[in-house]
């Protein structure tokens, strides 16, 4: 017997990003470029995981099916800095690793964002010792810090959402601004 009808359940809960505010009429819509760019960037962030310890394990859970970071548009992890928008530093960074991290950051194309996940990446954490970098903001500028040791996947997702807020509202001229150049200069990156 051939079943040519089978029960099909369609997902009716698909959410689509709201259209930016604008003026529209028949066949056209006018809005600010920055809003469109912000919306597009916000919902297609490519993260680069720089995982060195237990926060990286939490990140693996975050990418897994239960927490599923892909829901927020961060579907695609890349393991080359040249393709990525968001550097996620998760775990203890030793002083010897510092130049490597900086090199990875330099290789990323603008616009780029950085999130420091966990106590170690943010401040050195419990490793107040001669060999550990006391927070990655000593070598690269950081946009969002996620507290916790390690933070739960919810915490990491919250960090990503804060990054999304920054990405959405960022002026498209920010990366050309004098302040931004000064910031990079203070880290020895030009």
């Amino acid at each position, binding site marked *: 017997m051939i079943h040519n009808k089978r029960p099909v359940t369609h997902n009716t809960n698909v959410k689509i990003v709201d259209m930016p505010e604008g003026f529209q009429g028949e066949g056209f819509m006018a809005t600010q470029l920055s809003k469109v760019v912000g919306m597009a960037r916000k919902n297609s962030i490519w993260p680069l995981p720089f995982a060195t310890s237990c926060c990286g394990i939490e990140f693996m859970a975050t990418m897994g099916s239960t927490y599923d970071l892909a829901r927020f548009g961060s579907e695609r992890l890349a393991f080359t800095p040249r393709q990525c928008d968001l550097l996620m530093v998760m775990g203890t960074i030793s*002083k010897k690793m510092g130049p490597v991290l900086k090199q990875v950051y330099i290789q990323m194309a603008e616009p780029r964002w950085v999130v420091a996940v966990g106590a170690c990446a943010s401040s*050195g954490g419990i490793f*107040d*010792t*001669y*060999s550990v970098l*006391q927070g990655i903001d*000593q070598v690269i500028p950081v946009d969002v810090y996620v507290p916790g040791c390690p933070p739960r996947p919810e915490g990491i997702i919250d960090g990503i959402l804060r990054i999304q807020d920054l990405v959405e509202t960022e002026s498209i001229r920010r990366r050309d601004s004098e302040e931004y150049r000064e910031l990079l200069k203070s880290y020895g990156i030009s």
Partner: protein
Amino acid sequence: MLNNKFVFEKLTEKFGEAIIGYEESFDLITIHADKEHNLKILQFLYDEEGLAFRFMTDLTAIHYPDNPGKELVVTYLLYNMPENFHVRLKFALDINEPNIYTASQLHPTANWLERECYDFFGVNFIGHPNLIRVMNVDEMDYFPMRKEFPLEDQTRADKDDEMFGRGGHFNFGNITI
């Protein structure tokens, strides 16, 4: 069969005055000896029939800041694999002249272990082929495991020094040989 007494007697018979002392803890023999003879002793333990300590398990140093003239103690842990027998050798050095001969020609594993020992304690292994830092950053200008240097990172200003063991003096046990 190898035993602690046999090893000690063999060494005193060969080196006499250069063997300073002998102790046992948890059945493991520790021999204190003169640092000028370290290579000869290692070679003897390697070559001698019946001893044959041909595997270097570990090489490290310890800093005893309260023992003037013998601050740094270089420790070798040697192993006779067929007999499953360990022997520990200790050579005390003056911290102002931390020179000792390299064992890297005899035990190739000593190459990196000596580099690590130099990295953390500043022990100068004479004749080592490449005595540079191996674990720490190249820019580091001190030897972090020496006890005059605080363990904590000195770039942090957000911690109460007293609560985190910075400053003041701590009694390291004042262990004498």
